[in-house]
């Protein structure tokens, strides 16, 4: 799975700061300027206080595995050719959980609570933009 060509994600004006951060090798999170709440997934409004004043900041990229599953069957390409692969929720140091793949480890060695760091897979584009998909690997 480490060498997999990931499907191009849909990015919008609301989410481009996150995906551009991934292109630089950074996990970018949102914090509300009004109520200070950190939120993920990114959106154009604070889902806690409905303020539109949203700041972005770079997270450490360090996380622990909240839960995971090793998937042995997915008929859809490109995943069909990369089974078994590991899907997981990781809890970032800054609080939010995000859904991802665990790479750089034998699936049978992955454990809940394992310390992981972000690992970025560039996506092929033809317009000069740099996007990447954040996966996580053991620290």
């Amino acid at each position: 799975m480490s060498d997999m060509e990931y499907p191009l994600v849909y990015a919008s004006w609301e989410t481009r700061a996150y995906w551009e951060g991934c292109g630089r090798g950074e996990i970018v999170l949102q914090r509300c300027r009004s109520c200070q709440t950190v939120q993920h997934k990114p959106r154009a409004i604070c889902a806690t206080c409905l303020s539109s004043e949203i700041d972005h900041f770079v997270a450490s990229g360090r996380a622990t595995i909240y839960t995971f599953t090793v998937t042995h069957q997915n008929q859809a390409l490109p995943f069909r050719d990369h089974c078994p692969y590991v899907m997981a929720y990781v809890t970032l140091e800054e609080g939010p959980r995000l859904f991802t793949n665990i790479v750089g480890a034998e699936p049978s060695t992955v454990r809940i609570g394992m310390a992981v760091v972000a690992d970025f897979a560039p996506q092929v584009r033809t317009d000069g933009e740099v996007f990447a998909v954040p996966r996580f690997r053991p620290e």
Partner: protein
Amino acid sequence: MTISGNIAIAGVFEHPTRWAPDKTEFQIMAESARGALADAGLTIKDVDGLFAASMTMGAMGTVELAEYLNLKPNYVDGTNIGGSSFVAHVNHAAAAIHAGLCEVALILYGSTSASTATAIGTGGYGGGGRNPSEAWTGPYGMTTVGSYALVAQLHMNKYGTKPEQLAEIAVTMRAHAALNPNAKMRQLITVDDVMESRVISEPLHLLDCCIISDGGGAVVVTSAARARDLPKKPVLLLGCGEALAHQEIGSPDLFTLAAKQSSTRAFSMAGVSRDDIDFAMIYDSFTITVLATLENLGFCALGEGGAFVSDGRIRLGGALPVNPDGGGLSNNHPGMRGIFLVIEAVKQLRGECGDRQVTGAKLALAHGTGGTIGVAHSGATIILGSE
């Protein structure tokens, strides 16, 4: 006057087909409507409220369905929150009837998931979704099975739940299906059979997953007053509730299902306790769905689901029989199973279930789950009672 006790389910019909390559979704719905209206002692001319959802109906789906049935209803609801939709439709129909917006509500579902080779559990998200919401799971190869497996893995890690305990749920559903002449899978299985079936997404095996069938059904809802003039004994809606659960602002708690919120409301409305419930219809997309839902419905504490489903407690004859029809794990699962939870609950409360009849069934709970509990889902609960 409250909704509780004043709305009734007057007619139900579960389409007997499990494989219908020669039928359309609307045809299955229409044939089911014919069955449920006959069951209720009503005709299509009595219907003035239309409620429907399916795997393929789009924004104009209920309008197209109304044309197919040549219906001009006074009230229409195409709410689609996944497999729980039809349980939610009962709630919505009750509200509409109670408010005087319609009198006879027809709830429909039809699907050809099996004969159109729909890979519901393991075909998802390929190529990356182009909708904004799919950007967060699409690139990672999320599947329906995988989403539920995330919860199962966490449950085992935190509470020591054993795969054999999950397997017991599949074994129970198969034992019930063996008593249901219409069930798709009727050959008995053992815990070992489940454990030895291939792993789809760890820790869930093939036999931890629901089957895929064709099928459909219909439910007729009306006022209790009107139902009392109809041939069948009315089944009363005593409590209802619905809820949504999702990833919030990046803080999903995978142990807290929508069922917790929806059932709290339903029990409060019905004024009954968990101990009063004679049997439960629980959406069993996967074995973990049943275990986690039982905990969230309050039949046992969080973390105790593994012990709860052991020792025959959820089998016919046990303290809380679950899915006496065999459920989605063995009877039928044409994509969105919620309507069958309602249909079987009603038939059981009327005492029409033959070999699989829950003895003395007077009070039932049905809970539908839609979507996937590892990503985002809906829940709808109803509590039904015979008069």
